[in-house]
Each structure stands twice: as structure tokens, then as C-alpha cells.
């Protein structure tokens, strides 16, 4: 664990007795950000003919798609494409690099299964680029090409969301900030529009789709405004490239025989709300949510896949998420060392036991052989003794008999001697 500095645990609040000057920090930040310039990537998704390009042009008061740079709508697409156009716009000293990502062909085919896949792939690839750039050893200032906001265009059927709408939003709501819009809202009367909006919001909640949420601020006034905006979701928009004169004023609008639908009129449509929210008040927040939530989700999933080998064991991976992949490897190394130690002691034990067994066996067999040998020796000795005894007997008998024989011999000799004498005497007879 890295040791944090020896600091007081709770920061101490201090009152200043005079002007220090760090209240100027925001100005310093302002200055630096203007110098750096800003970037924003906006994606528009919807079927052809819903007025996406027109809306972009209206939002940014420019002809993003002109004769020289024709928009995707004028091209015939057979497959879903993801196209990006980068433009540089300047206003009030502030420079913005705006990237518009269009998805021509979306939802236009007969079979639209998986038509969201190229969109998902695009978003993921941008996150991937950022991840790689962020993870390099030599890092340089990284351009932020991630998709910050996705405007999803709903066809003004007046009934509800189509299955494709639901499917798309469900798949993208945790990858990018999704803002659903009702396109070509000038085909709906205010009442129809209200009902339509209610229906859509109901379906969004039913399917648990997480659309972009406006953060609450500390300012009550702002919160009131935000709540008002939330009530008008999804925003019903009308776009126009044409400037018409109405009551002496030049406005952007759509001219009908029965009147002019003004783009920037709050009673006609929610375009102004969208523009204010998207550009003037929440552009930074959209970028922050992309960076802190969507990108981090992507990153942790990616890294978890690499380190946790697919995260097979859920309980284990939860712990692993709080570490960097390298710390994770360190932890695994330590675990492994312990496992090895345990294995070693176990093996050692088994080894010792077996050796003991074997030695014991050897000892036993030695003892057995000793015993037998002793036995045989004793046997032999007994036999020896027996033999000795027999011999002694024999010797005794032999000497007895030999003594006897000698006496007999002597007797015989004496007898023969006497006979001799007698014989001699006898002859005299």
C-alpha cells in the first residue's frame, strides 16, 4: 500500500483575514481553456428523412453539409455507415472543434437486425483509441474523439416507440449519453405531442432505458429550470435551413400554406430548449459524463477482461477491480508464493512420512533377520552340545570296553601261558 503523507486526517477549515487572491483561480482556468480550445463530438442516429442534417445545420447555424460537402442523406446507402465530419467553429474568441457523426442507412433496410452494431463499434473504437493513447508510456496531449452525445431521432408516429427504437436505446444507453428527440414535430398538434411524449417516457421507463439526465445544481433557480426541461422530455424538434420573414423578423422556419412553423419559437417546438441545453449549458457536463462514466465503464471492462481472465469468479473479481492490473499481478504473485509454500510443506511432510515408513520397514526386517539368525545359531549350538555329549558317551564306552578287552586279553594271555605250561607238563605225563 502506498503511504499517504502524514497529514491531518480532517482538513481544517480556515477563515482568511484578508484577501489572498486565489479567487482568481477560475479566471486562470478560463484563460487556459480558451487558449486550449474545445472539442465536442455529436452523433445523430435515425432513419433517413427524419431531418437529422437539417437539425444539425439549425443547431450550429451553419451549413455543415453544403454543395461541396454533400451530406449523407443525398447519398444512397445500402448498408449502415458511420461517417464523421469535422469542422472548426469560432465564436466570441472561443474555438470549438466540432465532430458530427452521422449514421446513414440506419433502420432503412428491410431487415434491420444488428443495424446498431456499426454504431456500437464506432463508439467502442473511439474509446479504444483514447484508452491506448492514455496508456502509452510516452503520452502526448490526447485529442478527445469519444462520442459525447447521441441524438436519437424518433419518427413522429404519435403512437409510441418502435421496437427498433427500444432496441437501439437499450444497447447504447450505457455506452454514450442518449438524448431522444421527436423529429419533424411540426406534424403533431400540441395535444398529440403531449400524449406522444408521455407514451414515450412511459415506454422508456418500462424498458429501463437510461437516457441522459440533467444533473441537479446547487442553485434552486437553476433546478427549477431543469425540472421544467425534464418535463418536456423527449424534446420535439423542428429544423430548418431556410430563413423566412415573419412580422418583419427574420426567422428560421418552415413555410406552409397555413402558416410558418418557427424553429426558435418555444411554443412551436422544443428546439430552443435543445440548443440551450446541448450547447449553452450542458455541453461540458455531457463531456464529463462521457469521461467519468461511459469511458470508465468501457475501460474497466476492458482491463478486467485482460487481468481477470474473463472474470470467471465474481467474488474474486470484485476485489480485483480496486487494483491496477499490475497490483493485481503482484497480489497473484504473493498468493502463488503462499500456495507454493503450502505445497512445499505438504510435499515435505509426505516425503518425511514415506521415508520414516521405509526406514521402519527396514528396521523391522533387520530385526527379523537378526532374530532368525540368533535362532539358527542357538539351534546349532544345541546340536553341537548334543554331539559333544554323544562323543563323550562313546569315548567313555570305548575306553571302558577297551579296558575290558585289555583285561580279557591279559586273561587270554595268562591262560595261554598257563596252557603252555600245562602243555609242557602234560607232555610229561
Amino acid at each position, binding site marked *: 500500500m502506498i503511504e*499517504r*503523507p502524514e497529514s491531518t486526517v480532517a482538513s*481544517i*477549515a*480556515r*477563515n482568511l483575514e484578508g484577501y489572498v487572491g*486565489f*479567487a*482568481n*483561480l477560475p479566471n*486562470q482556468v478560463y*484563460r487556459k481553456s480558451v487558449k486550449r480550445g474545445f472539442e*465536442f463530438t455529436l452523433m445523430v442516429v435515425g432513419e433517413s428523412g427524419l431531418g437529422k442534417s437539417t437539425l444539425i445545420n439549425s443547431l450550429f*447555424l*451553419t451549413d*455543415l453539409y453544403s454543395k461541396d460537402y454533400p451530406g449523407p442523406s443525398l447519398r444512397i446507402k445500402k*448498408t*449502415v455507415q458511420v*461517417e*464523421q465530419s*469535422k*469542422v*472548426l467553429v*469560432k*465564436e466570441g474568441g*472561443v474555438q470549438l*472543434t*466540432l*465532430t458530427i457523426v452521422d449514421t446513414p442507412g440506419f433502420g432503412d433496410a428491410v431487415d434491420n*437486425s444488428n443495424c446498431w*452494431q*456499426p454504431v456500437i463499434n*464506432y463508439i467502442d473504437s473511439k474509446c479504444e483509441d483514447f484508452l491506448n493513447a492514455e496508456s502509452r*508510456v510516452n503520452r502526448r496531449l490526447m485529442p478527445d474523439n469519444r462520442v459525447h452525445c447521441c441524438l436519437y431521432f424518433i419518427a413522429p408516429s404519435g403512437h409510441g416507440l418502435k421496437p427498433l427504437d427500444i432496441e437501439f436505446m437499450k444497447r447504447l444507453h450505457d455506452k454514450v449519453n442518449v438524448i431522444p428527440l421527436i423529429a419533424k414535430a411540426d406534424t403533431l398538434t400540441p395535444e398529440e405531442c403531449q400524449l406522444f411524449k408521455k407514451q414515450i417516457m412511459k415506454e422508456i421507463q418500462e424498458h429501463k432505458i437510461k437516457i441522459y439526465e440533467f444533473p441537479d*445544481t446547487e442553485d434552486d433557480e437553476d433546478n427549477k429550470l431543469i425540472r421544467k426541461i425534464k418535463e418536456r422530455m423527449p424534446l420535439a424538434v423542428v429544423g430548418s435551413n431556410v430563413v423566412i420573414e415573419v412580422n418583419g423578423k427574420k426567422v428560421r422556419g418552415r413555410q406552409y400554406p397555413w402558416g410558418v412553423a418557427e424553429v426558435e419559437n418555444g411554443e412551436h417546438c422544443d428546439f430552443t430548449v435543445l*440548443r440551450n441545453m446541448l*450547447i449553452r*449549458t450542458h455541453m*461540458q457536463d455531457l463531456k464529463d459524463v462521457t469521461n467519468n462514466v461511459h469511458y*470508465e465503464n468501457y*475501460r474497466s471492462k476492458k*482491463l*478486467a477482461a485482460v487481468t481477470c481472465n474473463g472474470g470467471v469468479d465474481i467474488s474474486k473479481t470484485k476485489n480485483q*477491480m480496486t*487494483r*491496477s*492490473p499490475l*497490483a*493485481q*499481478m503482484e497480489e*497473484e*504473485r504473493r498468493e*502463488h508464493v503462499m500456495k507454493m509454500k503450502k*505445497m512445499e510443506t505438504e510435499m515435505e511432510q509426505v*516425503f518425511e512420512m514415506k*521415508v520414516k515408513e*521405509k526406514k521402519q520397514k*527396514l528396521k523391522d526386517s533387520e530385526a527379523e533377520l537378526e532374530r532368525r*539368525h540368533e535362532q539358527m545359531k542357538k539351534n546349532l549350538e544345541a546340536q553341537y552340545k548334543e554331539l559333544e555329549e*554323544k562323543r563323550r558317551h562313546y569315548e567313555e564306552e570305548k575306553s571302558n570296553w577297551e579296558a575290558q578287552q585289555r583285561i580279557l586279553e591279559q586273561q587270554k594271555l595268562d591262560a595261554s601261558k598257563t596252557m603252555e605250561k600245562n602243555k609242557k607238563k602234560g607232555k610229561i605225563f
Partner: protein
Amino acid sequence: MQYENISADMKQEGEGARAVPLAGHVGFDSMPDQLVNKSVNHGFCFNILCVGETGLGKSTLMDTLFNTKFEGEPTQHNQPGVQLKSNTYELQESNVRLKLTVVNTVGFGDQINKEDSYKSIVEFIDTQFEAYLQEELKIKRTLHSYHDTRIHACLYFIAPTGHSLKSLDLVTMKKLDSKVNIIPIIAKSDAISKSELTKFKIKITSELVSNGVQIYQFPTDDETVAEINATMNGHLPFAVVGSTEEVKIGNKMVKARQYPWGTVQVENENHCDFVKLREMLIRVNMEDLREQTHTRHYELYRRCKLEEMGFKDTDPDCKPFSLQETYEAKRNEFMGELQKKEEEMRQMFVQRVKEKEAELKEAEKELHEKFDRLKKLHQDEKKKLEDKKKSLDDELNGFKQKKTAAELLQSQAQQAGGSTTLKRDKERKK
């Protein structure tokens, strides 16, 4: 449904972006304000490290700079080594909240042998970098709410000798210049006269240059502040005086130090450079100091650390590595290592078992040989015994035969003798 590859799908318009004119006020010029609002809501944080010998007025200067009395008592000179003590304070000015951390070097320059003095400072700075790096590398990280403890500015306090830098100063600053933004200041400068001060500053600056010490330069790339920053760069090092006591000058209470021969006013630019320091450090360049710390010093630390751990941006064929590849490669290497260790241990055991088995077999063999020998001996003995037995039996038989034969002879002789005697007797009787 055929879906094309992403690279084929994406058509970029030109290398960079083309500029387009706007037909009206769009409103994104509020972006800097949006950013500022977010920062203000989030709060700021700033970390200052004060390096200097004991008694140079570091704590007093901090108090004076931030118009408040911070914690701490004056330290003694008898510290055994250099320690770093940090304190965090939450300050607020109008709607701006600042989390200020002041780190003091306690005992710097007090030891007899100061060779290792700089080490604890460098270690401290590195520890903060390491903490940030670890957070950045985590799988689930919360960089957004991370309390950044990296040192943004290092105020190096130079003793007002009037002559030149001490060698300890040069050594320390050289070790720190690639890790932190150094702002050298001449402490307690009310002990130096103006003419001496100019000479002192020139001497210090030339010594720093000749020793290759990189001190922090106030940035001159932004036109709004380029001029003032350039001028201030020429006044470095700032000669400061700190005081929290107030003296009445005219009809105002000002921060000053009162001597019998006059009063040194802290905020009087003729008396000292305190105002310049405050202006540069806090009011103009605080954000730049933070940025430099992050984009230069921290990146350098990170690069060195990652290279140390064996990470590279390109493989031997100079193709760029993706993060995933790098981690996977590292992981495979790591797993291979572990497996190898396991294998080695197993092998070792197998070897030992073999050896022990051979040993025991040897012992067994010896045992059997011994008993074979004994058995053989026994066999020999037995044979001997048998032989002896046999010879005894033969003798016995011989003796028996002899005896029987002799007895037969005797009985015959007796019979014959008897008959002879009988014959004799018969003859006699005749």
C-alpha cells in the same frame, strides 16, 4: 445484412477540421464558463512544499501569504533527520473553495552530515506521484474525486548570507528540479541591503544557470499574462519578508516588522518582493503550476516508472502495442514464470525422492548382503557339524563292529576254550 469494417466505414473529411462560418450566435462561447462553473463546484486543490533550513521563516511566510495562522510550533534544531510534515486546510474566498496542503521540511540543514538530506524530500515527492499513478492504473478508478497530493510548487528558501548559494542548496535543487516546480526565494531578506540584494540575486541566478538547475519560469505563451510574467521572471529569486504582526502606518494597519531603525512593510514593493511572490504564485500562475506538475513532472515520473516495469510503446518491429496486448503479454510472462517455479519445485522433490529411494535401496541391499553372509557362515558351520556327526557315527559304527566282532570271537574262543578244556579234561580222563 452485410456490415462493413469500421475503417472502411469512417470517412474523414480532410486531415484536420475545416473552418466554417456561423450564421448567428450559436452559444458555445459559454463553454469556458461551463468549465469554470464545473471547476468551482468541484473545488480546487493546491499543494506547496517549503524547503529550507530551520528558522528561515517558512511557516511565517505561509501564514502571511494566506492571511491565516496555520498549525504548528516552531521546530527545534535537534532533529535527527529530515522529516516532512504536511497539513491540509480548507480555505474559501468568495465562491472559490481551495484545499491547500502545506508541506514543511523539518530538520533540513540541521545535521552535521547533510549528504542524505535531499533524499527524504525526493522520496516524499515520488510517493505522491506513485499514489496518483496507482490510482490511474486501477481497473475501477475514481480519478474524478481523487484528492491530488502531488506537489505543485516548491518554495526553496535561501539563507540571506548575501554571498552565494550553499552547496546543500545546489545539491538539493539539482535533485528536485526535474520533479517539481522550484521557485527560489531569499528568506528574511530584511537583513540585506538593496545593493547587496542585487548582487546576491545575480550571483544566485548565475550559480543556478552554471549548475544546470531548472527553476520554474512563469509562462509567457499567453498574451494576457505574457508581459507581467516575463518581467517577474527577471526578479527571481524573490526576496521576501514574512510577518503576521500588524503595525500602524499612517492610518492603516499593515503587516510589518518593527525595528528601532524603521519598519519593514511586507506589502510594500520597495521593501521586499512579497507582493510579487503572491501575485505570481497565487493570483496569476496557480493553474499553470498545477498543469506543469501534471503534464511535465508527473509524466516524466510515470514514463520512468513504466519503462522500469518493462512497458514499451512499440514492439521490436516498431509496431505500436495496444494496451490490451501489453497487459496480455505481461500476464502471459507472469503466468509462465509462476508455472516454471512450480515445475522447478516439483522437479526438486522428484529428485529428492529418487535420491532417498536409492539410499534406502542401498541400505536394504547391504542388509541382505550381511544376512546372506551370516547365512553362509551358518551353512558352513552346519556342514562342519554334519561332518563331525558323520565321523562320530562312523567311529561309533566301527567301534560297534569291532565290539561285535570281538565279542563273537570271544564267545567262539570261549566255546573253543570250553571245548578245549573239555577235550583236555576228556584226555585227562582217559
